[in-house]
């Protein structure tokens, strides 16, 4: 168990000490929630606060999963660090487990901070079972984005990764209905949205806090499951290709 423990510890600490990562993924959604969720709740009632709690928590979870995994793997592959690890007797699974565990730890951090803010300042009242359900849905919803992170990490170069991840992440967030409610988005975006994993993640969390939804929760769960399989399978192929030696 020792290598797994140290691998997770090092992965988490190394990201936590990188302000470029921890601030942009954890602090940004919290800051937005403070601006919109809390202040709007005072004017327009707690339904906004609830929707923003669900949406911005999902935003934070997606950001920590995607960035934390895609950017680190691309850099570790591209600059040779992964080769040193592969040459060592590190259990190969430890590397993957540490990436996922670290993403889940950061997600937990996002969820705890967000819940505290919503409960203390956002005027949000949820039944304990709904708090729990929301937390579980947020953590489980991290998995397809971890898989996407692995896929991008294994196909992108170290210098292009941050740019490309942004190029995928920002439009995905725009179409998800989290930043801008779906009914205010252009017609074609609304039609296109169900093809995007972030949309289903948002719909699922909205359904738990009782915000209006367009897609039934069971459909969103199935879609997220399918995305996890597709991204995970593609990531596995990319990993196989590298393992059997195209590298260098």
């Amino acid at each position, binding site marked *: 168990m*020792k*290598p797994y*423990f*140290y*691998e997770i*510890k*090092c992965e988490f*600490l*190394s990201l936590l*000490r*990188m302000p470029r990562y921890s601030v942009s993924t954890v602090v940004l959604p919290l800051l937005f929630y403070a601006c919109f969720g809390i202040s709007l709740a005072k004017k327009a009632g707690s339904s906004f606060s609830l929707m923003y709690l669900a949406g911005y928590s999902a935003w934070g979870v997606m950001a920590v999963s995607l960035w934390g995994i895609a950017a680190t793997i691309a*850099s*570790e592959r*591209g*600059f*040779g*660090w992964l*080769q*040193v690890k*592969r*040459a*060592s*007797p*590190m*259990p190969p699974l430890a590397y993957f487990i540490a990436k996922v565990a670290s993403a889940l730890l950061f997600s937990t951090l996002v969820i705890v901070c967000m819940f505290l803010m919503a409960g203390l300042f956002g005027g949000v009242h949820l039944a304990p079972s709904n708090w729990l359900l929301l937390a579980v849905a947020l953590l489980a919803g991290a998995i397809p984005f971890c898989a996407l992170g692995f896929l991008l990490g294994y196909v992108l170069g*170290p210098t292009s990764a941050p740019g490309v991840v942004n190029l995928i992440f920002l439009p995905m967030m725009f179409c998800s209905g989290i930043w801008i409610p779906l009914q205010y988005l252009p017609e074609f975006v609304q039609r296109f949205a169900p093809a995007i994993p972030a949309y289903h993640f948002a719909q699922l969390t909205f359904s738990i806090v009782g915000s209006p939804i367009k897609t039934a929760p069971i459909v969103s769960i199935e879609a997220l499951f399918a995305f996890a399989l597709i991204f995970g399978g593609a990531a596995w192929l990319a990993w196989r290709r590298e393992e*059997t*030696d195209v*590298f*260098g």
Partner: protein
Amino acid sequence: MIVAELRNVTKRYGPVTALDNVSISVKRGQVLALLGPNGAGKTTAVRLLIGLSYPHAGDVRVFGRDPHEIEARRRVGVMLQLGRVPETLRVREHIQLFSSYYPNPMPESEVVAIAGLQGLERRPFSKLSGGQRQRVLFALAICGNPDLLVLDEPTASLDVESRRSLWGNVRSFLARGGSVLLTTHYLEEADALANEIVVLSKGRIAACGTPFEIKSRAAARRIRCTTAWPVGEIEALSGVTSVRAEAGSVEIMAANPESVVRALLNGDPSLSNLEISGAALEDAFLALTETPAQPLEVIA
């Protein structure tokens, strides 16, 4: 006993043949240096031995096993040429992580002592100098108490002082027993550490031998002439490494052709057909010593 070997290995990258039917073996207790210019195939040989790639032909064995097996990896420590290392982790955290991969790691204090990292344990990697960084990578290679240490160009980007200090670290590791395979493009480095040198050039073995043999061959010139001098007397001249008489002329290998020729001419006014040329290995070593900072005279 052989701890690691390449047997008739061929490895291609696309149209480029990186290794062409090469056999190399590291014996227990030995320090073997792979010497050669960039592109000679050194790093390819290392990647095969540490299980990062597969040969197109031939066989690679480490402690009698396929180097991809975890049991083989547990007995090998590796230091590679790297672009970037997780910068925010501290030296101690790096060492603890890599120690956790091995069944019988060295105590941390011992790793720190051998790698010369005392006082730097809490320093983040980003705050280290170039020489200190290399010593951390060296620490990660030895922390698992390996029986074989593989060092790929361990001092390539270092100044003379850091280079010498890292050589000291390697010697401290050797004092505990164990074998080392290192690659370098400095003859001086191979000479300082190794007891056997294999010279690679364009994917083939250009020469192999002890550092003394390689150095004398590297420096030698071939002198050919027709002379009345007896072979035995020529051999006694200083700087002459070998003399061969053939069909009326003699062929002399010497590290200092000028003084040998001067002595020959002084002693034999009838000497004729004088010809001086670089030895066959010369070309390989010219390529090796292209780095201006390391002129051949200094090395030899």
